[in-house]
């Protein structure tokens, strides 16, 4: 295969969620054929740049996003694709360093105080890692002080807050207030999400964006970096 063929084959396998040769893929007929992990290794061995592979996988995730929006893909299909990219990113990591390619940014993620839901948060994390961000997961039920400390320590450019309850989403405001107080508010973009949250709520508490789902988070981040550039 030439460079372009490798890249297209990697993208196709990402879209079909075909992680490795043990996996059956979206249509169930791919067991035994090389998946994303094998293809990425092979492409690197044949001199394909890690940066190009990462970009093409992102483009694959775009396709996945479209299929999710249209209802063709369900959450597990999206996760399968994102986990392919996540695993491939680990293979690419040392090569990206060598090529001098930096991660897209550092992200801190938490479910806020009093709230123990983590499924949505974890899906977003998988997607963000798949899109090339470095993500620090603080877990669930994290109070404002711990979140702000983590942002300060890691120098993260982005903070994601999740809440699934109307009674806990109010703690998102505590985090924003504390960021303000610590003089960090202009250093970090705050994205919020979770079933009861909304665009209006994000505005009301002064967050930078509300994300309906994991794909919207990825798009919002792209808009941020486009504006920053």
């Amino acid at each position, binding site marked *: 295969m030439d460079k372009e063929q490798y890249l297209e084959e990697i993208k196709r396998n990402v879209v079909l969620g075909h992680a490795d040769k043990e996996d059956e893929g979206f249509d169930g007929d791919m067991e035994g054929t090389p998946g994303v992990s094998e293809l990425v290794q092979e492409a690197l061995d044949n001199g394909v740049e890690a940066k190009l592979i990462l970009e093409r996988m992102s483009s694959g995730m775009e396709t996945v996003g479209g299929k999710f929006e249209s209802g063709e893909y*369900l959450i597990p299909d999206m*996760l399968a694709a994102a986990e392919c990219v996540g695993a491939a990113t680990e293979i690419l990591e040392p090569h990206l360093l060598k090529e001098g390619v930096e991660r897209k940014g550092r992200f801190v993620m938490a479910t806020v105080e009093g709230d123990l839901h983590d499924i949505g948060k974890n899906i977003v994390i998988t997607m963000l890692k798949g899109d090339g961000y470095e993500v620090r997961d603080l877990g669930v039920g994290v109070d404002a002080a711990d979140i702000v400390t983590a942002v300060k320590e890691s120098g993260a450019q982005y903070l994601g807050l999740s809440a699934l309850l109307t009674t806990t989403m109010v703690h998102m405001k505590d985090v924003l207030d504390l960021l303000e107080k610590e003089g960090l508010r202009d250093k970090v973009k705050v994205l919020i999400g979770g079933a009861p949250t909304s665009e209006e709520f994000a505005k009301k508490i002064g967050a930078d964006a509300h994300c309906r789902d994991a794909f919207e988070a990825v798009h919002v981040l792209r808009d941020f970096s486009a504006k920053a550039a």
Partner: protein
Amino acid sequence: MIIIGERVNATRKSIRAAIEAHDAPAIRNEITGQADAGADYIDLNAGTGSGDVEQEKRDLCWLVDIALDCTEKKLVLDAAETEVIAHAARHLNNRREWMLNSVNAESEPDLAAGLAVAAEFKVPVIALAMDQTGIPDNSPKRIEICGRIHAAALEKGLAEDQLFFDPLVLPISADVSQGNVTFETLAGIMKKFPHAHTTMGLSNVSHGLKKRIKVNSAFLLLSIANGLDSAICDPIKPDIMQAILLGELLTGKDRYCRRFTRALRKGVFDN
């Protein structure tokens, strides 16, 4: 889930008639229909109940020939008499992977003979949890019988993963505790013999009731939750395939829910 398609069984009137009339197209339809519906194995049973063992041998070989011709699926040679299975096995001569259905612990010589055939052809064998006292009404005794068959099978050179234990099920209409006896037996077998398989027919559970397919498929779902990893069933019935898909989905055996979502796309859940 290893699906054994049960439809080609001479205890069914239409199959008996097809065997007696040597109506090969009718048998072929039954086989290919099950293969298309997702069966892994096609069970072949030629026991018309005439009591003529020589006739049954000829009939089972006739079924084998049709199956070899019309499907790539694995086969199950199913007969009450070991000599019928042995005869068909020699005729088949491992031209296709197959499984022996069945042995039990009713008589030691019969058990030994059945296991010897399985060992000779190196094929898996279905083992029923019953002995000379019949089908025990409790799970400890059924598990104990499975243990005896297990020991005898390993002695003959079979591996644990070649054993498909059938915990057996008695009608719930006569004794409502029997569903649980089967579930406990399943769980006990899987715990004691982790490499072994379990399989069973479903329809006995609903004997004497109505809406039997609903009862059978719910029973299948609960059995999967208790470790059942194979079933002798009718894959053409949507309720059955739905129960299998849902059972595997809910017990974490369907990575990324793919078999379930593929079935959704194929319309398996549309009725």
